[in-house]
């Protein structure tokens, strides 16, 4: 039989293995061949084994609900394959200890009730009303305000400078401090102090700014409120039309372009000409927004190019040097030796810290990046930029890990704490000899407003000083003694998920930069990494 015919038989058989139908005659021919031709049988064996491996390696997306119902495990953190298996085993043992189990269950139920009644949860994103679009860096406003920060309902202060926020309704508010606002909804904002310019698109007509005892209802316009003198707020219509209403519901004058009104707290409002020069020019603000982002991106590019010269880098993925359409993260380390490019197995490319830059979004357990490192290190440093997008985080999420078994494996995770508020920290865990884990935890790395924002994280082990240090946004947040002198064996690396199995410890969010050093970087280097990469 010719090789060509042999290939056709193999082709048809494997096509059927992949789902294709075969005629009864063809099935009969293939069966005959399988029995009579040992070489063909061996080839089929090899191919089917290969297809199985391919399926297994291609990380699957789990079906959580079905797994939860199969296991019925009460442990919220243990719905992954491995942990579920462990949960079942532990349940199996408990069958032999019914009384103890019942007591445990009672305690658990009581604890669960207490938890659901009392534990803090990160639900701020659900209440999100606006995202900060621009923060004037020359005259920074409140120290906590930063671009991409998501704002929920409630008071919002700007101590000085200017910022711009985009409401979910589509309205853009440009705020000049000192200002005090109360975000009531995406369609209603109270201005207690400061200057606010509202740019209202047609679909958001009806957007209302309240100041003093007045409601200012947009009817398609750009208008501004100046509450620098809280007892005498003014409304200026820069474009379009605005309805005014007193708090009692009585309609006031309708203002059009070029008109303004000093509202005061009396019934008599005082007309005046609009003074657009007292407010930021929106076109100028737009230009500054674009320029600001461009500048920050260029600054980061220069810093990344400089960092890529560091000979101690094992891996440096800037998430920018990528071949569009490819799933490869280029390793920019100058002497990577064993550090490989990263392969995007799951996940997808999204906009990174800047519009010009890319990041990888992880949403599902199968969203991950694989790489090879194959080095054993005493000192090491991990630096990265990540963004958490989960609405509520109640389980660990893996940033980076080496999934082999044995000593020296690393697990770097975002870790929720039940007892702390803010309740998100990070864990660096290194497996010691005999499969014991040495964990270096840090609480309160992430406060709730950090969700949805880019955060710089770092982990450094320094044998010389005997310390493990953890960093968040360039600041050291933990400085812990090395508890066991364990070398780190970086073999395979997985970013964003947990090895081969259907884990729930997957990262929900995005990653935008990762540097792995063969040395312990200094605190100032971490601070520079943050400063140069801050969006």
């Amino acid at each position, binding site marked *: 039989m010719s090789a060509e015919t042999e290939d056709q038989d193999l*082709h048809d*058989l*494997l*096509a*059927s*293995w992949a*789902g*294709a*139908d*075969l005629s*009864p005659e063809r*099935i009969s021919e*293939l*069966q005959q061949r*399988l*029995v009579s031709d040992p070489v063909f*049988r061996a080839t*089929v*064996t*090899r*191919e*089917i*084994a*290969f*297809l*199985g*491996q*391919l*399926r*297994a*390696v*291609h990380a*699957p997306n789990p*079906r959580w609900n*079905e*797994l939860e119902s*199969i296991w019925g495990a009460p442990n919220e953190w243990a719905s992954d*394959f*491995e942990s579920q*298996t*462990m949960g*079942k*085993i*532990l349940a*199996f*043992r408990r069958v032999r200890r019914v009384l103890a189990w019942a007591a445990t269950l009672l305690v658990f139920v009581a604890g669960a009730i207490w938890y659901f009644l009392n534990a803090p949860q990160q639900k701020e994103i659900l209440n999100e009303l606006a995202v900060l679009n621009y923060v004037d860096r020359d005259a920074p406003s409140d120290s906590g305000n930063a671009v991409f920060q998501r704002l929920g309902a409630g008071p919002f202060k700007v101590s000085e400078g200017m910022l711009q926020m985009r409401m979910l309704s589509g309205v853009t508010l440009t705020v000049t401090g000192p200002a005090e606002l109360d975000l009531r909804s995406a369609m209603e904002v109270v201005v207690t102090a400061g200057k606010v310019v509202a740019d209202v698109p047609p679909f958001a007509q009806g957007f209302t700014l309240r100041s003093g005892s007045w409601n200012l209802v947009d009817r398609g316009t750009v208008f501004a409120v100046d509450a620098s003198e809280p007892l005498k707020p003014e409304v200026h219509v820069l474009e379009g039309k605005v309805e005014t209403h007193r708090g009692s519901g009585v309609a006031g004058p309708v203002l059009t372009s070029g008109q303004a009104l000093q509202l005061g707290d009396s019934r008599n409002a005082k007309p005046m000409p609009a003074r657009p020069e007292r407010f930021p020019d929106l076109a100028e603000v737009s230009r500054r927004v674009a320029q600001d982002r461009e500048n920050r991106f260029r600054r980061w590019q220069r810093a990344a190019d400089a960092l890529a010269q560091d000979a101690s880098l094992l891996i440096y993925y800037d998430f920018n040097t990528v071949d569009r359409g*490819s*799933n*490869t993260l280029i390793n920019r380390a100058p002497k990577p030796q064993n550090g*490989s490019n990263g*392969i995007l197995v799951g996940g997808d490319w999204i906009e990174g810290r800047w519009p010009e830059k890319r990041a990888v979004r992880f949403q599902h357990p199968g969203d991950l990046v*694989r790489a090879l490192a194959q080095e054993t290190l005493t000192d090491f440093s991990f630096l990265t930029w990540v963004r958490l997008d989960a609405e509520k985080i109640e389980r660990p999420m893996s940033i980076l890990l080496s999934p082999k*078994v*044995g000593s020296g494996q690393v697990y770097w995770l975002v870790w929720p704490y039940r007892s702390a508020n803010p309740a998100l920290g990070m864990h660096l865990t290194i497996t010691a000899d005999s*499969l014991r884990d040495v964990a270096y935890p840090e609480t309160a790395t992430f406060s709730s407003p950090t969700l949805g924002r880019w955060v710089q994280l770092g982990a450094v082990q320094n044998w010389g000083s005997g310390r493990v240090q953890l960093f968040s946004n360039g600041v050291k947040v933990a400085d812990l003694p090395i508890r066991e002198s364990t070398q780190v064996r970086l073999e*395979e690396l997985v970013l964003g998920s947990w*090895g*081969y*199995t*259907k884990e729930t410890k997957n990262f929900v969010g995005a990653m935008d930069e990762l540097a792995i050093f063969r040395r312990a970087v200094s605190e100032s280097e971490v601070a520079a990494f943050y400063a140069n990469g801050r969006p």
Partner: protein
Amino acid sequence: MTTEEQEQTIRRILQGEVELYAALVREYSLPIRGYLSARLHQREEVEDLAQEVFLAAYRSLDKYRPGESFLAWLFGISQNKILQHLRSAHRRDSAMERFHQFVWDQVGQGVRDMTRETPGWQMERLSHCLERLPARLSRVVRALLREEKVENLCTEFGVSRGAIYTLHWRAVRQLRQCMGGEA
């Protein structure tokens, strides 16, 4: 995991440190799932059965004899689980399923041995090779791995079902070449 580490781990599990079983699950889940995936094509089935394999192994851990290959033992359990599963699932109703069982009867043992002998790192390289496939082949092979409907691919590419399976065949050929080149 070295043989010594493995046996030490099992000893400690039997002495009560059951949490260490997670390490064994982690170490061997890929080859076991690879073997199960060779016969069962639905991910859900594979994952469920893999869990059952590790549960069964745990419950019989005291029967494991040091010095023997733990992985081989797991493969033995897996083989039985596949048989039980296929019997209980009334798989032999269709001609294609009967054909698949016939094929498996011929090659299953060999697939088991071959998967057991394939190092984990080599399986991992498949991810890298998958990445190197041309876009069209990559699309086909990933779609079939995700159990997408072949009809959708036919519409997308404007070709017949047979042509899709031919593309899949070519993709697997290239993957094998890639693996051979890197091994």
